[in-house]
Structures are given as C-alpha cells and as structure tokens.
C-alpha cells in the first residue's frame, strides 16, 4: 500500500518541472482548477524559480487527470512541451475536452498518435500520481497550494509569493 503518512514536501529534483530563477517556490496545482487558472498568469510572471506539481482532484473535476497526463505526454515529445501545453491549458480554460487537446497538441507540432498513447500510458499516470502522493503527504488539502522553503503558505497565495520576490 502506498505510504500516505505525513512527510516533508519533496525537494525539487531532476524529474520536476521547473522554470524561472530566483527564490524557489513549489506549487501544487490542478490544471482543471479555475482558481489555479486565474492565478497562474500572475504567478508565472513573478521573479521566482517555480516548480509545479500535479495535484488533480479527479472526482471534483473530471478532466483533471486527462489534462495532467497530456502535459506529461507533451514533455515526452518536446523539451518545452510540458510548459507549452501547461500555459496553453490555463490560458484557455474553456476548451478542455479531448478534441481541444488534440488541436493544442497539433499546434505544438506533436505527433498525435504518440501523444495519445503517451497520455494514456502507465508511466505518465505513475508520474502524475507520484506528485499527488507527495502533496498528500505534505498536507496539501486543495489547490492552489504553495511551499516556500519547505513551509506551506497559509492565506493569500499570490500575496505571499509576491513577498518572496527580491526588490
């Protein structure tokens, strides 16, 4: 059985999706979460080294798992595929069904047959679940949730992240 007892938030590792430079922030996000979509455009512009992790609440948001798996599948074909699809999903939250994902993948120049096979693969599902389990163990109880210096941010996420950016 997977161990879901309390543990510190996993430090940023080689398999994480990281971008930007500055103080580190680890974010647990759900690609189908409207609040995450609303805050992402502001968060991504902050002068921070951002690590995003998958935290799909699948029962609440039926498209969550498919979206997170799609982002991982894009990463398997293009070095910048993960971030390209990630940003594209948050930028247009009204088109999240499979045909919309195929269209996004096509615009990114991904090979569609492989994209579809990859996003349904066990490897991709395990990658998404690993992030989710790490979040559960660190006490993530909703999205968006952020950690700075290993500590979970309570209260206004955007304001707390902004306060981390050096002046």
């Amino acid at each position, binding site marked *: *059985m997977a161990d879901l007892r309390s543990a510190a938030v996993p430090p940023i590792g080689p398999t994480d999706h990281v971008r930007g430079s500055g103080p580190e922030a680890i974010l647990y996000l759900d690609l189908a979460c409207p609040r995450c979509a609303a805050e992402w455009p502001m968060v991504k512009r902050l002068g921070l080294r951002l690590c995003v992790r998958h935290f799909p*609440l699948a029962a609440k948001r039926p498209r969550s798992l498919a979206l997170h798996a799609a982002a991982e599948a894009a990463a398997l074909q293009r070095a910048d595929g993960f971030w390209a699809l990630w940003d594209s999903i948050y930028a247009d939250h009204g088109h999240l069904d499979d045909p919309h994902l195929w269209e996004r993948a096509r615009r990114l120049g991904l090979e569609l047959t492989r994209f579809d096979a990859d996003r349904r693969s066990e490897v991709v599902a395990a990658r998404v679940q690993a992030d989710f389990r790490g979040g559960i163990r660190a006490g993530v109880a909703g999205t968006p949730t952020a950690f700075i210096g290993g500590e979970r941010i309570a209260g206004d996420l955007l304001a707390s992240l902004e306060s981390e950016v050096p002046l």
Partner: protein
Amino acid sequence: MIEPGSEAPAFTLPDHRGEDVSLSSFRGRKLMLCFYPNDFSPVCGDQLSVYQEVRPQIAEAGAELVGISTDGSWAHNAFRKQLGLEMTLLSDFHPKGEVTRAYGAYIEERGHPNRSLVLVDEQGIVRWVHESPSPLEIPGANLIFDALDQVSQ
C-alpha cells in the same frame, strides 16, 4: 472535544439518501468521522474532495470515512453529486447538532460543526481526535493516515 479513550457516543442519523445509519453498524471496522461546517462551502468542498481521492487507501487501511454536518439529507445528496463524492454523509440536522455536540465538535456561536476528525476503533472507542484551530484550516489527509498507523501499532 471528546477525549481519546472515551466510548464513542451512540447515534442514529439519516444519510444522504435519508436512510438511518447507526454508529453500531460500524462495529468491527474502524470509523473516521469527519465533522465539517457546511455543504457547498469552498473549504469543505476542497477538504472532502481531497479525502475522496484517497478513499481507497483509507479503506485499505481498514477504515471507513464518513462525513457529518448539520445540513439536511437533500443538501448532502446534491453536495455529493457536485463533487463526485462516494463517502457516506450523515445529517445532524434535527435536533440540530445534537450528535456533533456529543462529540464536542459543535461551535455554538456559529451554529455548525468545527472541522474535526474522530477515529473510532472496532470496539466503538475513540482512539484519536483532531480539531482544526479554525474552520478555515483543513486537516490534510496525511493526518488520517498518521492516525490509522498510530492506532494499528
């Protein structure tokens, strides 16, 4: 809040289908009672959605998770459907909050339960409790697994 080591107060409450559920029906299984303030509140929605995702692992650990609030059965039913929840939700609606009070989880000035977890063992004894410092603070699912691990040792 009720103390670990106490006998869990007996109850019979209607569930989300309006059918009576008694504490005694959980004898022989561990029961994690999750008292929460309100159906449809964003924070309660987040809490129960996260617990829903780890419901299989809670079952693997030999426990059943059951939610309780002072909302009625019809509201519970709609709340479950909205969030895709599979857990039983019990309605402490009438007399309002009576069972929640018996577990020491009722906030009188607010008229709803505090966010609290109570682990009842196979013999009906309270083994672990957690009360949130404020209704806005969600106890992570990790605390449920810590408690189940602690009680099984």
